[in-house]
């Protein structure tokens, strides 16, 4: 047997390019359906688990899928916002705890999620280092976000400016990192959490500037009319919230009108959930209430349907590939008729020659299986990120 394997190995090594092409073709043919199956299975499990863990999601009328993807997976943007007053309205019903979500800006590509302390207890997020958010201008980072941004409690991060050329756009805000969360393998790991008021400040809804009633600001004052003060563009805007300027930050307008991307509603019980959902079923309402798991199941059903088509196509390509490979071996055996005849004439049994040719095929297949297995293993490691990216690209 060793001799047969040795001869097969020498043949494959001598014809290394042909061997490499065969191994590549078989590896890809095996890897694609395997990886697709495994990655989809694991990814959908996680996607569905997060959706299933979120009982009720409220947002402005529009695409439920976009609402779920942006609010639960922090991918994409919601097409419209609802008002903060809805949080207060849900609270007033006593049916559920309302958790606001405002996902506006980004820090180093990581989403900045403005929310309330209830979010952390609802998602069972615990602080690994530092402390929870206590004041506006503070940030609590997901484990992966902290690792990527290379920041620790006590350091700071700066939000991304919307655009250099947009003079009406929001300016960057320096955030003080007060803590880092334990990793839990969800999109929360990638997020930068702030208080919802901080999120509004980042969005330009709230702001802080020098006190215009002080004498040193007089040079910037254009007009004083009772309590109304009109200042010029030279007035100093604060881009960092500190203990000394915290009181200079303020919001103009009614807080109940301030925008939110979504609200997670955590009903007291099943009945409360149904009742709350029913309140937002009317076609005239400006809020839609959805069950994320239903939306995700619809999406995943589509994904699985597409998967069936893809698998069928890959299967057909696989059959064609294996047929071609079989043809290559048959033609190769024909081309080697002289060599086979020589071995027979010297004294080799036909079975032994067959075993040698079989060993060549077995070595190619075994190598391909090892490569396909290794690639599939890597795919299971990175496949979820890939799917995550695909979902965000499609959203």
């Amino acid at each position, binding site marked *: 047997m060793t001799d047969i394997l040795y001869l097969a190995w020498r043949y494959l090594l001598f014809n290394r390019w042909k061997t490499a092409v065969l191994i590549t073709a078989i590896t890809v043919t095996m890897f694609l359906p395997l990886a697709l199956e495994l990655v989809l299975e694991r990814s959908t499990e996680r996607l569905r688990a997060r959706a299933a863990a979120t009982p009720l999601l409220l947002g402005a009328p529009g695409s439920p899928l976009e609402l779920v993807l942006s609010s639960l997976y922090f991918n994409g943007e919601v097409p419209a916002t609802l008002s903060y007053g809805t949080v207060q309205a849900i609270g007033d019903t006593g049916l559920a705890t309302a958790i606001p979500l405002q996902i506006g800006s980004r820090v180093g590509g990581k989403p900045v999620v403005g929310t309330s302390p209830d979010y952390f207890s609802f998602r069972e997020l615990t602080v690994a280092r530092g402390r929870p958010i206590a004041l506006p201008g503070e940030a609590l980072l997901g484990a992966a976000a902290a690792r990527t941004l290379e920041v620790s409690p006590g350091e700071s991060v700066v939000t991304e400016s919307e655009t250099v050329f947009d003079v009406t756009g929001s300016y960057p805000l320096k955030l003080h990192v007060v803590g880092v969360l334990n990793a839990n393998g969800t999109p929360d790991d990638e997020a930068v959490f702030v208080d919802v008021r901080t999120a509004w400040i980042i969005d330009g809804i709230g702001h802080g500037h020098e006190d215009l009633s002080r004498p040193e600001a007089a040079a910037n004052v254009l007009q004083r009319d009772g309590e109304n003060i009109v200042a010029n563009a030279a007035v100093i805007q604060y881009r960092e919230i500190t203990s000394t300027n915290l009181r200079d930050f303020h919001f103009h307008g009614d807080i109940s009108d301030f925008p939110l991307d979504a609200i997670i509603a955590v009903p007291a019980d099943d009945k409360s959930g149904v009742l709350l959902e029913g309140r937002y079923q009317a076609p005239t309402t400006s809020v839609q209430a959805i069950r994320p798991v239903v939306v995700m199941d619809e999406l995943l059903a589509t994904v699985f349907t597409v998967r069936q088509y893809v698998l069928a196509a890959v299967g057909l390509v696989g059959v064609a590939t294996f047929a071609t490979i079989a043809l290559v071996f048959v033609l190769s055996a024909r081309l080697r008729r002289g060599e086979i005849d020589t071995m027979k004439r010297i*004294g*080799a049994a036909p079975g032994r*020659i067959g075993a*040698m040719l079989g060993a060549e095929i077995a070595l190619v297949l075994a190598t391909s299986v090892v490569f396909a297995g290794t690639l599939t293993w890597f795919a299971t490691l990175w496949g979820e990120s890939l799917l995550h990216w695909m979902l965000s690209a499609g959203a």
Partner: protein
Amino acid sequence: MISIKHLEFRYPRGGFRLRLAALDIAERERVAVVGASGSGKTTLLELIAGIRRPGAGVIEVAGQDLAVLTDRQRRGFRVRRVGLIFQAFELLDYLNVRDNIMLPYRISPDLEATDATAPRLEQMTRDMGIIERLERFPHELSQGERQRVAICRALITAPDLILADEPTGNLDPDNKQRVLKLLLDQVERHAATLVMVTHDHDLLAPFDRVLDMRALHGVTNP
């Protein structure tokens, strides 16, 4: 060494027919077989080697009647007792010189290399002037070197009988004489019997006997 009586052979689908009343070749005899193309020289070698089974008659090689052996027994007999040299060398292009010479050991379970095999290979390749080429592949060798490798492959199992089918047919005149001399030296050194088919009458001088297929009176072609 070889005793043939009342041999008859016919290819299943061809009109070619070989008949041989009697032929005896002694041990260590060096016999050249000549004859026109299609006269049955190669067929005769293949019958003596046990590659083909005769339709009738007796072929005894080293006291063994090949006609009564099974295919497996004939293969075993051939790989142990007979060394074959072909006109086109028939080396395996994916094996280096060392592996080509050792091929009989790799393709047959009836042979097992011993402690004496490696020194034998070294001695033979030194004698044949190819010891420096052991790690080379056939495409890196000259025609003469390839045939020397083929001779080493035929002799590595220390066979009693060497059957050579026009071993110099693909060589230039200088190489022909050189390779023939090396072959005869090795046959002499290993005390083997040699039956060599050739078209080249310039090479007949060193042989003990020359068999002309026409003189055997048994070959018929349609």
